[in-house]
C-alpha cells in the first residue's frame, strides 16, 4: 500500500462527497427527482445488509439456520415495534451471540 494510492483513494472519496453539494443547485432538482432520491437509503443500505447477512466470509450463501439470519430477524422485529435504533442493534447482536456461543 503506497502513500500515493491512499491519497488518490482519499481524493476520489472526497470528490464523491463535495461534487453534488458544490456543483448542483437544489432548485435543479424537481419534485420527481427528489421523490426518487428519497428512496436512496432504501436501496443503498440493503446492498450492504444482504451480502453481509446472507454470504459467509468466502462469498457463499449461508444456511437458513445461520446465527446471522436469527440475529437480523430479531433486529427487524424488535426494531419494527420499538422504532429504536439502539434496541435494534443490541437485540440483533444478543440473539446472534446466543446462537454462536
Amino acid at each position, binding site marked *: 500500500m503506497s502513500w500515493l494510492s491512499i491519497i488518490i483513494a482519499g481524493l476520489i*472519496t472526497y470528490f464523491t*462527497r463535495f461534487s453534488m453539494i458544490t456543483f448542483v443547485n437544489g432548485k435543479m432538482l424537481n419534485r420527481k427527482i427528489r421523490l426518487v432520491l428519497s428512496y436512496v437509503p432504501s436501496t443503498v443500505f440493503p446492498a450492504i445488509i444482504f451480502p453481509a447477512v446472507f454470504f459467509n466470509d468466502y462469498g457463499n450463501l449461508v444456511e437458513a439456520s445461520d446465527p446471522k439470519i436469527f440475529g437480523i430477524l430479531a433486529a427487524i422485529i424488535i426494531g419494527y415495534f420499538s422504532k429504536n435504533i439502539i434496541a435494534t442493534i443490541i437485540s440483533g447482536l444478543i440473539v446472534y451471540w446466543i446462537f454462536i456461543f
Partner: protein
Amino acid sequence: MSSKLSIFKTGSIDIAPLLIPVIPFGIIFGAIGIELGFSPLMTYATSLIIFGGASQIVFIQLLSGGASSLVAITSVGVINSRHFLYGAVLTEYLEKLSLVKKLLISYLITDQTFAVSNKFFKSQNVKNNKHYHLLGAGITLWTTWQVTTIIGILLGSIVPEEWGLKFAIPLTFLAIIINEFRKLDHVLVMLISGISSLIFFDVPFKAYIIITPFIGLFSALIIIKIKDSQ
C-alpha cells in the same frame, strides 16, 4: 449563537446511537490493518484521508490480497459513489453556504451523518444555521472513527475474531432504515435492492454497490409512476 450551539449539540446527540457499532467497527478496522501487515501510520492515514469505513476495509483487504492499486482505488470510488446520492439530496439544504464552507462540510458526509441530518433537515423547520446539525453529527462521528482506529491499531490482533463484531455492520444499516419498514413501497425497493446485491455480488470491483442503487432507484421510479397513475 446559542442556537448554533444547540443545533450542533442536537446533531451530536442524534448521531450517538449510531456510534455504538462504529466503535467496534473502528477498532476492528485498526486491528485488521495491523493484522494484514500494514504499518500503524498507513493504517491510520486511511481513516484520516479516505474516512469511509467499509471502503477502507475493502481497500486494505484487496491490497493485502495482491490486488493492484488501480483495482483497490477503483473499488473505493465505487463503494463511496453512494455519497453522490447523499450530496444530491443534501444540496438543497446547504445551497446558501459559501463555496469554502460547502467544501469543508462535504468531508463529513457519511452514511450515518446523512441519515440523521437529512431526517433533521426534513422534519425541523429551522431557517438558519441548520448545517450546524451536520457539523455536530459529522465531527462527533469523525472523532469517534479516528480515536477507535487508533485504539484498534494499538490493540492489534487482541480482539478475538470469534466475537463476530463484524455482524454489527449490517445491524447498523438496518437500524438506519428500520422506520421505512412501515412503508410497503420502501420494503419492495429494499427487497429488490437486497436481492440484486446478492446476484451482482461477484461482479468485479465490488461494482454491485453501484449497480444495485441503479436497479433500486429504477424500481422506485416505476413504483412512483404506478402510484401517480392511480
